[in-house]
């Protein structure tokens, strides 16, 4: 008889034998459903959200790729764009420049930002107007669509004529929202959109006019933006003017910092859910194994080898694990679909929910594996059930007594550890963090184990003969042979640890997001405030009752030399290195990197730098030290990416050309800047003193509560200082806070779901060990114990176990959450004392309820039934 046929026979036995136990086993294995559903929901949801962010990011950018230059493109670049357009790439051009706008009917004038756009602009996202839906009519005649603040400051109405240069435009509508129009640094006034076919008529763009030339590209299906970007950068990296290229992926970066935090958090949720599932399976299967002792003993008498017995039950567990995992996956998909629906008050309903097959497949695979590996540990003890049990029944605990050196058990234990590490790696995404999670889990288990051992020892000494019998009996249960102290403390404590850690991390993250929302304080920026206007603008702001959030001096400058070598010399070096490398067949960027040359773009560009005594909230010093007030020699702090583009290190000397004056500075720190905050941020910050004599302008940030007040303040400033332009940041902030509230809701929801699921798992984990107690209770009952006495014995034991287990778990969780906040989320931590105490009390209550329920069951069963079973 072949092995295959033998296995088929075992399948048949496994199938039949599972008949009545199927439901129970499925219940145990369904613990894994929690893990799988969390995994599938989280991964699918993350997938969907990042997809939406990707889409939103496209909208913010307007196209797949955007090209931007300070001057008309070179002929080469123009030819490339023309040929792209002919071959199916969407091309849309935006020309942006400053001009005075005049409304003849009111006589008002105002510096405006003209944007001449070609018909397909934008490819992604929608420009909303008031009245609604007229954006596409812009190209049907000499029309203009303008910022509402322009109407206020020019005292104009819809339908009025706006003159730009020599051309006249009818004001068709006002702008509500232009996705992604966050060109804070370039913003110099209210926006006026006109069709680019009328650009020539204005007569404004003569040779040498300062304008920005942008081109949005929508890539055809076969061409990836990244590939295009790579090739473009190679061919045009040394073109004049330099064309700066951004792809959607690059644009996402700024948006995804918050999303990253969400990802980290959801990674932890998934890990916690899987671990909880593992506990549920292991303790459930343990109880299941206890019930199978008799059957296994008979099978052994009938000639089943220990291997055959194991196969029979592993087959059952695997089948039920698969069903549990599938149910979990289905539930996860349901959650994923329900998520945007549940959160519709929070979310702008544009999260596209789609099935994520990879997430589902991964969830199933991980779920079945975890179910099997955690079930295998208790199942292994089935091998040790002796056929002698048929003749002479020993207590469960004796039957299950562990062999001293069981290599199979060691292999399975090792596999469990390896699986936990692997899952941690899967969820954490990097090795260091995975090791951190694994070690934290190991430390928690170790601590709980020690706690349990100490409790057993303490219980032995604690009980006094003077105490009532029921209390002594309950406490004695903690150390007598076959006690459940270790298993309950471990399962309960670990479960509480996981859930409470999750809860505290959630609380801390939410608090932090709240902070972030509030910290984006300024919603109005005044630009181009000249030195002699600063006081005047300041007093207008003050007198209208608003506060200045930030006042940043801005000094334009260029790099003159680095470490004594002039820019011209540096550029020549770079060029020759690139040429040499290209001759050797390496592309430009890589050649530069390989040769360690400085980026020509960064060497040539104009920097708008500031000086200040303290770092802004949006920046963090990465290396070196922030300026000390005592050292007044010229020093700079350089933004991280710029520092690497320029290959400058701490201690290097950078000489600046500030409007003809050479200022040598020492690099004393590098910074990380959160650009997404929409505050004026700077690549280079000087220490106070170095630039105070230089000619400068100011950017002034104000917080103004309502739209009407924004318009009024803008108008008041412009009346007195016509050259000062302003930008209303509210819309941008609105977009950002939308994203943040999405993140917040998702965090809250996932944590809630995990906690709600965790409780039944803990319930079954604690309940799994109560069979021995049940039998004992029945015996006591036959010996004359009353219901009350049995109840109190159970109460004493379970209350101690519950209190100690959950307290240990909660205390551990404070440490766990603190470490997570510090090392993974890199922010501050404040423990949530009260909720955590509630968790500990709740879990103790849960354990007591289980104990009392067991006591009740004792009185539901007849003594004979339980004794015969024994």
């Amino acid at each position: 008889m072949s092995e295959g046929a033998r296995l088929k026979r075992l399948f048949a036995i496994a199938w039949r034998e599972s008949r009545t136990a199927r439901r129970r086993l499925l219940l145990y294995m369904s613990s894994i459903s929690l893990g799988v559903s969390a995994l599938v929901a989280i991964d699918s949801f993350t997938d969907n959200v990042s997809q939406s962010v990707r889409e939103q990011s496209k909208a913010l950018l307007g196209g797949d790729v955007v090209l931007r230059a300070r001057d008309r493109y070179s002929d080469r670049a123009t030819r490339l764009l023309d040929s792209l357009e002919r071959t199916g790439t969407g091309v849309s051009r935006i020309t942006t420049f400053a001009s005075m706008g005049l409304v003849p009917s009111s006589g008002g004038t105002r510096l405006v930002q003209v944007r001449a756009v070609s018909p397909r602009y934008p490819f992604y996202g929608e420009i909303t107007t008031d009245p609604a839906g007229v954006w596409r009519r812009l190209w049907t005649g000499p029309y203009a669509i303008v910022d509402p603040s322009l109407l206020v400051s020019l005292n104009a109405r819809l339908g009025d004529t706006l003159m730009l240069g020599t051309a006249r435009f009818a004001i068709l509508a006002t702008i509500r929202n232009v996705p992604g129009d966050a060109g804070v640094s370039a913003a110099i006034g209210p926006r006026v959109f006109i069709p680019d076919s009328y650009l020539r008529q204005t007569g404004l763009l003569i040779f040498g006019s300062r304008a920005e030339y942008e081109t949005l590209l929508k890539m055809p299906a076969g061409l990836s933006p990244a590939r295009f970007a790579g090739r473009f950068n190679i061919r045009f990296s040394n073109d004049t003017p330099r064309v700066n290229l951004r792809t959607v992926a690059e644009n996402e970066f700024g948006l995804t910092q918050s999303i990253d935090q969400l990802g980290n958090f959801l990674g932890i949720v998934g890990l916690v859910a899987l671990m909880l599932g593992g506990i549920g399976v292991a303790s459930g299967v343990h109880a299941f194994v206890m019930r199978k002792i008799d059957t296994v003993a008979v099978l052994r008498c009938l000639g089943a080898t220990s291997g055959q017995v194991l196969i029979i039950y592993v087959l059952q567990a695997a089948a039920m694990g698969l069903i549990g995992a599938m149910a979990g996956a289905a539930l996860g998909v349901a959650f994923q679909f329900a998520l945007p629906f549940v959160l519709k008050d929070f979310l702008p309903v544009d999260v596209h929910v789609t099935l994520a097959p990879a997430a589902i497949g991964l969830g199933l695979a991980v779920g079945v594996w975890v179910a099997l590996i955690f079930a295998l540990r208790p199942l292994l003890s089935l091998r040790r059930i002796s056929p002698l049990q048929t003749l002479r029944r020993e207590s469960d605990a004796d039957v299950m007594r562990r062999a001293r050196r069981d290599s199979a058990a060691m292999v399975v234990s090792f596999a469990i550890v390896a699986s936990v590490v692997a899952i941690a790696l899967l969820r954490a995404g990097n090795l260091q963090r995975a090791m951190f999670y694994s070690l934290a889990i190991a430390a928690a288990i170790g601590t709980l184990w020690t706690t349990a051992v100490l409790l057993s020892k303490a219980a032995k000494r604690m009980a006094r003969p003077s105490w009532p019998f029921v209390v002594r009996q309950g406490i004695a249960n903690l150390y007598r042979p076959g006690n459940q102290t270790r298993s309950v403390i471990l399962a309960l404590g670990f479960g509480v640890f996981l859930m409470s850690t999750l809860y505290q991390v959630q609380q801390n993250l939410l608090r932090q997001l709240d902070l972030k929302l509030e910290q984006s304080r300024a919603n109005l920026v005044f630009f181009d405030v000249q030195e002699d206007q600063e006081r005047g603008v300041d007093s207008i702001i003050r007198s209208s009752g608003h506060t200045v959030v930030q006042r940043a001096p801005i000094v334009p400058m260029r790099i003159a030399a680095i470490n004594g070598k002039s820019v011209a010399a540096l550029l020549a070096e770079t060029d020759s290195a690139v040429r040499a490398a290209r001759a050797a067949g390496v592309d430009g960027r890589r050649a530069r990197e390989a040769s360690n040359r400085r980026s020509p773009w960064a060497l040539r560009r104009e920097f708008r730098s500031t000086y200040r005594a303290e770092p802004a909230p949006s920046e963090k010093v990465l290396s070196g030290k922030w300026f000390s007030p005592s050292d007044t020699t010229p020093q700079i702090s350089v933004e991280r990416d710029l520092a690497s583009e320029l290959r400058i290190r701490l201690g290097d000397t950078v000489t600046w050309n500030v409007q003809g004056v050479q200022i040598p500075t020492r690099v004393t720190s590098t910074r990380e800047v959160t650009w997404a905050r929409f505050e004026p941020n700077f690549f280079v910050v000087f220490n106070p003193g170095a630039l105070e004599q230089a000619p400068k302008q100011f950017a002034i940030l104000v917080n103004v509560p309502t739209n009407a007040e924004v318009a009024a303040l803008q108008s008041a400033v412009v009346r007195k200082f016509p050259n000062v332009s302003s930008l209303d940041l509210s819309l941008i902030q609105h977009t950002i806070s939308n994203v943040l509230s999405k993140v917040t809701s998702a965090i809250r929801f996932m944590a809630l779901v995990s906690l709600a699921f965790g409780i039944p798992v803990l319930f079954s984990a604690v309940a799994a060990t109560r069979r021995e107690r049940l039998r004992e209770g029945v015996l006591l009952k036959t010996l004359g114990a009353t219901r009350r006495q049995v109840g109190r014995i159970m109460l004493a034991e379970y209350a101690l176990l519950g209190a100690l287990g959950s307290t240990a778990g909660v205390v551990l969780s404070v440490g766990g959450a603190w470490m997570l906040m510090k090392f993974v989320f890199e922010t501050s931590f404040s423990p949530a004392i009260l909720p955590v105490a509630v968790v500990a009390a709740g879990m103790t209550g849960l354990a007591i309820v289980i104990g009392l329920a067991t006591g009740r069951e004792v009185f539901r069963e007849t003594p004979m039934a339980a004794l015969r079973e024994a």
Partner: protein
Amino acid sequence: MLRDVTFAIEQGEFVAIVGPSGSGKTTLLGLLAGLDTPTRGSVQLDGTDITSLDEDARARLRGAKVGFVFQSFQLIPTLTAMENVQVPLELRGENHVSDRASDVLQRVGLGDRLDHYPTQLSGGEQQRVAIARAFANRPRILFADEPTGNLDSDTGGRIVELLESLNRESGSTVVLVTHDLTLARRARRIIRLSDGAVVSDDLTRSNGGGGGNP
């Protein structure tokens, strides 16, 4: 528990082991059937020294040569009568197990109870299923541990008759462990145990097979 116990049982014998409770009957049975190993001495089963085999090899030997009938029937509660009988056959990986199982159940008079679960059967019927299961794989030797202990005397008598007839017809050796002397007398040989030692080993009047001396 047992000391100085030495005897041999020939193929086809019907032997009863009797003794008061605590005399070592169950321990002896566990040793004979290879459920347990002695601290000293050896047990030979159908020419194999089972004391030198490991747990799994003994399990295979049981599957091939040994049948069991227990006082508490020990049917697997989740399986039907038919399926209980099939288990030893399936563990050996045999074919046509359902034919063989229903044959044996017919022989013990349960042809109409094939699909009943143990809880749906009376005690006597359950024990007959157990006997059918024990004989399903045509064992060389069958061990019965107080097979009538949980049954009334009428039903018990019929169970022993069944064991006798199967012993006669199939030639399987039967070892019956009991404290009931009336029952024991139906065997052809009685081994008496007391305090872990064999106190007598006699052939009864119904003597037909060979016997050995302690």
